[in-house]
């Protein structure tokens, strides 16, 4: 059941070093505030999942929080790949090329209620080099149905799913509207979940196209007005805090492969 807590407490309690974390949401619901809180808390070695890594992921990578990136399309509209953090992101892309490619598209398909349920595999009508040659590194199955070759892809099961939404009520039911993306899916697929919201209201009023997540599938709800805004000053504050914590100037982590056996040596750390 959702607890209504501060964002700091939510991240402190639910995001751990080394976790697989997915921060999802389009445009007006990109969970920037939560991303910044992860930076502030100095989390490390995160495997970050997102359909379209955004400025918030540039920032997380730039601040040295990430060890791996899993994505579908890695660019920022108009901004292309931005300044130094993006350069690191490109390095990370090169190092984790194997995490991505033609098919491993994180579109949230085939995820189901968390806790105890087996990961659901999503058959994909996909052909190309990716499905056959590179991806999943032994984790995918291929089958032929009615003469058509299908790739069965393991669903993502993040340790933590983080979303931003417009509203929650006092018992933690969350409602969001606008382009819903894979926000519902990421909460349901994750072992733990955090929803930041613009406001807490007494009663959720139904919205056309609104997505409601019952409080019992969310772990923490935190009020973060303007939680999808990009805030450079928050990042700078985070940097100061990290220095104060004695971690020194954050640097990108050495890039290494998660699966050493599959590493072809491109990370330079066999």
């Amino acid at each position, binding site marked *: 059941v959702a607890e209504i807590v501060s964002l700091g407490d939510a991240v402190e309690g639910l995001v751990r070093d080394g976790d697989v974390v997915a921060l999802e949401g*389009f*445009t*007006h619901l990109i969970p920037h505030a939560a991303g910044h809180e992860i930076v502030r808390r100095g989390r490390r070695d995160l495997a970050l999942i997102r*359909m*379209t890594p955004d400025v918030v992921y540039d920032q997380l990578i730039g601040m040295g929080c990430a060890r791996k990136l899993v*994505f*579908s*399309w*890695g*660019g920022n*509209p*108009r901004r*292309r790949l931005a300044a130094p953090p993006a350069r690191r992101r*490109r390095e990370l*892309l*090169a190092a984790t*090329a*194997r995490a*991505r*490619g*033609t*098919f491993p*598209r994180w*579109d*949230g*398909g085939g995820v189901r209620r968390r806790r105890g349920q087996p990961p659901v595999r999503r058959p*994909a*009508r*996909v*052909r*190309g*080099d*990716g499905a056959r*040659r*590179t991806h999943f590194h032994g984790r995918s199955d291929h089958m032929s149905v009615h003469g058509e070759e299908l790739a069965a892809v393991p669903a993502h099961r993040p340790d933590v799913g983080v979303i931003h939404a417009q509203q929650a009520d006092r018992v933690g039911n969350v409602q969001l509207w*606008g*382009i*819903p*993306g*894979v*926000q*519902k*899916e990421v909460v349901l697929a994750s072992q733990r979940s955090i929803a930041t919201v613009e406001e807490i209201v007494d009663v959720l009023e139904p919205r056309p*196209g609104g*997505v409601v997540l019952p409080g019992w599938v969310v772990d923490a709800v935190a009020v973060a007005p303007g939680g999808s805004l990009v805030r450079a000053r928050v990042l700078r504050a985070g940097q100061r805090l990290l220095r104060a914590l004695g971690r020194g100037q954050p640097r990108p982590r050495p890039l290494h492969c998660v699966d050493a056996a599959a590493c*072809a040596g*491109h990370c330079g750390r066999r």
Partner: protein
Amino acid sequence: MMAVEAARWLHDGAVCFVGIGLPSLACNLARATHAPRCVLIYESGTIGAKPEHLPLSIGDGELAETADAVVSVPEIFSYWLQAGRVDVGFLGAAQIDRFGNLNSTVIGEYEHPRVRLPGGGGAPEIARSCRDVFVMLRQSRRAFVEQLDFRSSVGERVSLVVTDLGVLEPDPVSRELVLTHIHRGVSADDARAATGWELQVAPDLRETECPSREELVALRALKTASGDGDGR
């Protein structure tokens, strides 16, 4: 010119799966000119979007506000795209081969890429599920290659390739891309020189029409409404 030419190939009422950039410009141009009933689907889940300005990204609020329906990403791919409800899908890429196979993943070896590209996004599924696939790509030897470095999307449904030099269409039997149109001022030899394989040229090679006044007015109106309009 690429956007104008691609727009002309869309019939009124076509259901289009649209990406940001040139495809978005082409579809909105078609909607503003000869095909007002074109249905625009952006992969963020906006169905029937009618943007006044060109969207900045597939997540642009303008798309959701003007859409007939807004659905989740799993729904747009499973219920709409894979279910065969889309007539035309637009794709770009870094490389294309003679059969319309596309690479948007890496340049160089996969494990040791020279350039790691942004990735396919929804392209592999679009390439397999739309009735027709239109590719928009500038023609050069770097892009039109004999051998792809990586095949991200299959080319079997590519029915049109619009370039800055002309238009290629697949041969009905061999499925190899054949140059069928050139833009004014371009020769078949120019197109051959910009292609990494021995480009077949249609015996009845035609010239595309220059943009009309109506098309230019609509194009400029879209660009003006969108700032510079060159979103991606």
